[in-house]
């Protein structure tokens, strides 16, 4: 199905508007933000990864937009067919291979809800195919993937929004806005704030079960495609269907499952969308090679002294390295407090739908999502490596630790590559 605007396609409009060549008269109403978008201005939508969070993520993507589901994809073709039939029977087509779906030129917006080891590769391919993307969290499986996603969306000026939305509330909250301004101002030197996330990261719930014998691959599942860019392993059911979270190959335990929800809004509040921690200190026992497991706490310290701490509460001792305290105006001199008061508030964050209409960055854009994912990945790497890590947030490499750097861009299984 082709969605056509009155005199031009949406793609024509987007291309022309970005180069400043569009006449006002052909601007479609949805782009101008009219409350009602006529049926003729529908966008073609697709969902890739139809189990678990898939349907909810797709619905979230459609908010503020007029979208018709045209395609659904899953390595388990039954799930794709079920979702396609449930939302647009007879019109939406089911796929098992996302490449065939992305080849279609009538799909404008794609929701990605596969396990995280696929998020980056599919997001990148979708942008290369000209689609806007709402991608489930966590954004990536490893750090180099995030940078590649950022670069690709920047290259094509496509809209990316991560599937967590806590920062939108923070951006409207007076207290959070004030903290954001203090931190963004750069006026606070040697920041002593320590922000603690205690519990809630589902450590035991998303710990993997080691030693499960290989099982027969179900007929409807393309197991090689499921493994995709991650190292191939023999099939066993717990590697799929939600319990994939317990395997390093696909996600990274409760840290990655819940961490982006928690730290994405924190990252906005404390103005860390464009940087990462410089020192990461863990307290954790040796990690298992395949499955995620126990840890006690991780401290991530930024260049300005600010610290995020996560404490599992499900294993080991409590964090005891520094007192927990927030940022406040009292941390600044009276003169600097006046400067903060004079600073304008940050621009309102745009939802995915508004960003698509206005061709602007969404509130949870790729760079911010990548930096939030880096919090989780750096914490998990410190847990897995069992040592303090020093990180260069500009070059995105560990300092003087060649073995740790091997985890930042682990080689991918062919034909997948960044």
């Amino acid at each position, binding site marked *: 199905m082709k969605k056509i605007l009155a005199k031009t*396609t949406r*793609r*024509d409009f*987007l*291309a022309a508007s*970005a*180069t400043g060549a569009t006449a006002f008269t052909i601007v479609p109403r949805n782009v101008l933000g009219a409350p009602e978008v006529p049926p003729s201005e529908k966008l073609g939508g697709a969902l890739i990864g139809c189990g678990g969070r898939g349907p909810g993520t797709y619905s979230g993507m459609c908010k503020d937009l007029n979208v018709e589901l045209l395609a659904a994809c899953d390595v388990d073709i039954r799930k794709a067919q079920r979702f396609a039939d449930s939302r647009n029977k007879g019109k939406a087509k089911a796929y098992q291979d996302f*490449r*065939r779906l*992305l*080849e279609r*030129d009538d799909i404008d917006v794609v929701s990605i809800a596969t396990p995280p080891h696929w998020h980056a590769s599919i997001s990148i*391919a979708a942008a*290369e*195919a*000209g689609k806007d993307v709402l991608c489930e969290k966590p954004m990536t499986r490893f750090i180099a993937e995030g940078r590649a996603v950022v670069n*690709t969306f920047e*290259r*094509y*000026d*496509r809209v990316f929004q991560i599937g967590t939305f806590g920062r939108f509330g923070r951006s409207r909250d007076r207290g959070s806005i004030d903290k954001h301004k203090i931190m963004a101002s750069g006026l606070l030197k040697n920041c002593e704030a320590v922000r603690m996330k205690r519990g809630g990261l589902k450590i*035991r719930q998303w*710990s*993997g*079960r*080691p*030693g*499960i*014998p*290989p099982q027969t691959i179900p007929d409807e599942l393309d197991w090689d495609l499921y493994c995709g860019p991650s*190292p*191939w392993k*023999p099939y066993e059911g717990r590697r799929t269907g939600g319990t994939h979270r*317990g395997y390093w190959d696909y996600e990274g335990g409760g840290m990655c499952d819940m961490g982006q929800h928690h730290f994405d809004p924190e990252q906005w509040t404390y103005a860390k969308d464009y940087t990462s921690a410089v020192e990461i200190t863990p307290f954790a*026992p*040796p*990690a*298992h*090679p395949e*499955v995620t*497991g*126990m840890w006690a706490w991780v401290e991530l310290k930024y260049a300005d002294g600010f610290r995020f701490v996560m404490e599992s509460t*499900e*294993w*080991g001792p409590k964090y005891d390295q520094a007192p927990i305290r927030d940022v406040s105006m009292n941390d600044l001199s009276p003169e600097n407090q006046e400067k903060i008061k004079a600073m304008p508030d940050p621009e309102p964050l745009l939802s995915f739908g508004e960003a698509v209409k206005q061709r602007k960055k969404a509130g949870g854009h790729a760079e911010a999502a990548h930096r939030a994912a880096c919090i989780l990945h750096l914490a998990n790497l410190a847990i*897995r*490596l*069992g*040592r303090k890590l020093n990180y260069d947030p500009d070059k995105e490499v560990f300092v003087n*630790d*060649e*073995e*740790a750097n*091997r985890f930042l861009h*682990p*080689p991918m*299984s*062919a*034909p997948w*590559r960044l």
Partner: protein
Amino acid sequence: MNAKDIIQAFPTPASGGILSTIDKEACEKAVGQILDGGEKTLRELANLLVEPGKGNDIQARHALHATAIRVGGPAKAKQRKAFAKALAGTLGDDRPKAVKGFILRQLQICAGNEQADAIAAFLTDGDEHLHEYSAQALEAIGPSTTDHFRKAYPKAKGAPRLTVLQGLGFLRDEKSVKVFRSASKEKDLEIRLAGLWSLVRIASTEDVQFLLDTAAKEEGWGRIKATGYCLQLAEALAGAGKKKEAAKLYQNLKKNRTSKNESHVRLACDKGLANLK
């Protein structure tokens, strides 16, 4: 102490099948004992590994991995080299291929160029995905391993061939430029794309026209990816100060990606050209 006793410090699955009863101090001590035991203890440990589904080696895998991890990091080069040498030595033993796959994955974490010979022996072995684990371990070691990929490529068939080709590209092997160009013209789409991607990784001005011509022949998924590679090459050249060649790529793509569903490519070209000014 023998390896079987040492690894008892590592947990077995508790309630829910997870490793929640792990004792950090005991495990760290066990890692020290494995290292103190040297090659003999390490071989004992490797002998405790079994094929998935053929027995319980949860503690042995955990202990071996923990040791491979803990010999890494600053100021541990001597310890890491000794451990990696001994671990690579176990690849020559008579073991199930799935076990060798696990050992290769541990070498990916800790091995150096000294272990490349032992690892590369599996580059063309498609059983149990050994070629993949071997390639990934060599890629982790770095560009010093390109000789092994170059030697393996003519012998590799099927999945290993693509993996080896991609490995050469990952490592940016300039000596393989002809191989990459040749691969870019093959029948198999994935081989073609791996060839083009590899050329982009090297980012030579000499491949500008070749990439444009080759990418223009692709359709569907191949065209999407190949066009993306052209844009990446333009960015790489622009970053290296080769603005004329970068502009050529952008202008060519802008002129030739004319279909409605390629408007985003034209947009990217306009943006790229603007950035060159």
